[in-house]
């Protein structure tokens, strides 16, 4: 490549990187502001904080019962992830191995499930839960989330299992293995990568979800992190000393997960999309 071509490329790269960093400015802004005192924010809304003021965080942590809500969120998220992976993989097995009309119908139903907004089910789920006493319970919330995320899991696993050679099934069948044994001993161990990617997505959706816990949970002790943030920051005043530490605390776990697993997450998005 000519020298001029090389220079252009370098300049262009720098420009694009700058643009991308500009996009991340709001995140940097959020973190910066969380370390500033109230008067500092008024005086100098854009500059770097004078010192790492931790008072905002102390205040937020004490009022938000952060630890409790993190434990709640983790518990709910993990339960949903486990349930969705297991039930989803189980259901995907026949859908991947049989292409009969029934399979196709079920896959279509799954696709329909994916495009249905959570809103359609929120009213009746509230009513149903109230009738059977699942309102304001962990179990209820976990079940509702599981139903919400199952279509994605089934879709994911169906295409993944579809890429596992049928020969493996047939070899096991020759050894007189029943369907379930084939699933448990042959298919299941191979699902590792798919489960890992799916789990990341389910965790993302459940952890960040706001509507379901908002409407289905009223007991303070059961609040998830997002609800804690919402309750703490409120809806009317924009008090930056509350808002920013809460925002950082709320996004921290997932951002850490992202930095650790970003390659897998991005791969999962593109893999799912290119089918």
């Amino acid at each position, binding site marked *: 490549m000519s020298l001029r071509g090389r220079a252009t*490329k370098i300049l262009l790269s720098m420009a694009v*990187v700058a643009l991308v*960093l500009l996009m991340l400015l709001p995140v940097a*802004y959020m973190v910066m502001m969380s370390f500033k005192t109230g008067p500092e924010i008024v005086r100098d809304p854009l500059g770097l904080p004078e010192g790492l003021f931790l008072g905002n965080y102390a205040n937020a942590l004490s009022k938000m019962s952060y630890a409790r809500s993190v434990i709640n969120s983790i518990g709910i998220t993990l339960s949903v992830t486990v349930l969705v992976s297991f039930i989803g993989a189980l259901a995907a097995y*026949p859908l991947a191995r049989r292409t009969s009309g029934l399979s196709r119908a079920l896959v279509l139903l799954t696709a329909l499930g994916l495009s249905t907004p959570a809103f359609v089910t929120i009213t009746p789920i509230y009513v149903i839960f109230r009738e059977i006493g699942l309102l304001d319970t962990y179990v209820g919330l976990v079940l509702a989330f599981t139903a919400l995320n199952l279509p994605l899991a089934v879709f994911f696993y169906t295409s993944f299992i579809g890429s596992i050679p049928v020969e493996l099934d047939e070899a096991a069948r020759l050894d007189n293995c029943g369907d379930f044994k084939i699933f448990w001993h042959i298919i299941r161990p191979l699902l590792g990568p798919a489960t890992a990617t799916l789990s990341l997505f389910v965790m993302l959706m459940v952890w*960040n979800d706001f509507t379901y816990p908002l409407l289905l949970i009223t007991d303070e002790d059961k609040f998830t992190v997002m609800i804690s943030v919402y309750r703490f920051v409120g809806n009317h005043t924009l008090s930056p000393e509350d*808002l920013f530490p809460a*925002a950082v605390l709320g996004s921290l776990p997932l951002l850490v997960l992202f930095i650790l697993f970003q390659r897998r997450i991005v791969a999962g998005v593109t893999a799912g999309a290119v089918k």
Partner: protein
Amino acid sequence: MGKYRIYLFTLPAVLVLGIFFVYPILLSLRLSFTDFTGVGIPKDVGWKNYERIFTRSRYLDALQVTLLFTLLVVTLQTAIGLCFAALLHRLPAIRHFCRAALFMPAMMSFVIVGYVWQFIYSPFNGGLNAAFGRLGLAAFQHNWIGDPNTALLALGFAHVWMFVGYTTAIFLAGYAAIPQDLDEAARLEGTSGWQRFRHIEVPLLAPSFTINIVLSTIGTLKTFELPFIMTRGGPDGATRTLSLHIIDSLFGKYKFGFASALSIVMLILVVLIAYIQNRVLRAREARL
């Protein structure tokens, strides 16, 4: 060993989905024809709820707001995502970093994005206005979410910010599927970057377009948290989406029956649009 015995595997999924998904939708349908207020016995009112939705202007407005918002977001997101992907395709050195960096906002919850952007847009020395002031562009300062003319745009921008990484990643995957030799052949013939983009890349990226447009449309039509947190439907209903009406009817006014009707309308809308889009875009894919 019946041929259908293997379908037993789908039983747990069918059960869960049946009870917590299909049944609620059917119940929603039934409730939509009543005036259920959450207590007591629902009384049948026929099509009155639906009549109300399609004749009162506030609901038609909400429909318009939702559709406009979706159009805005999908167009911007797809365009910007395409630009980034086209650039990053040509700059492999920074591709991984940029793709991951752009993706980061998608990991943040709507609630947090809503709060942070609400502050950025704040007329009282919020980040955006302060930046304009510092850069000497004080004329650009504005009450972004307080002005009915700019509120929807402001929300839209925050939404695009969150998901542009998704769009870019999907387009980049589409780029990876373009055969190398095509690109090289075009280069050898002396075509410019822009010509290559218009006549080779864009047509070959058709499947990625389909996926991006369908996914972002479905996702944006459902939008709730951003308008709820940032503007609560204001100012003057400029950002009152269909979803906000549903929640308001449900937990603000306890009109369960009416909320159900709104939900069913939303469901039909989303499924219809998704179906039409899918058909149109796939047909386009086949042609190109």
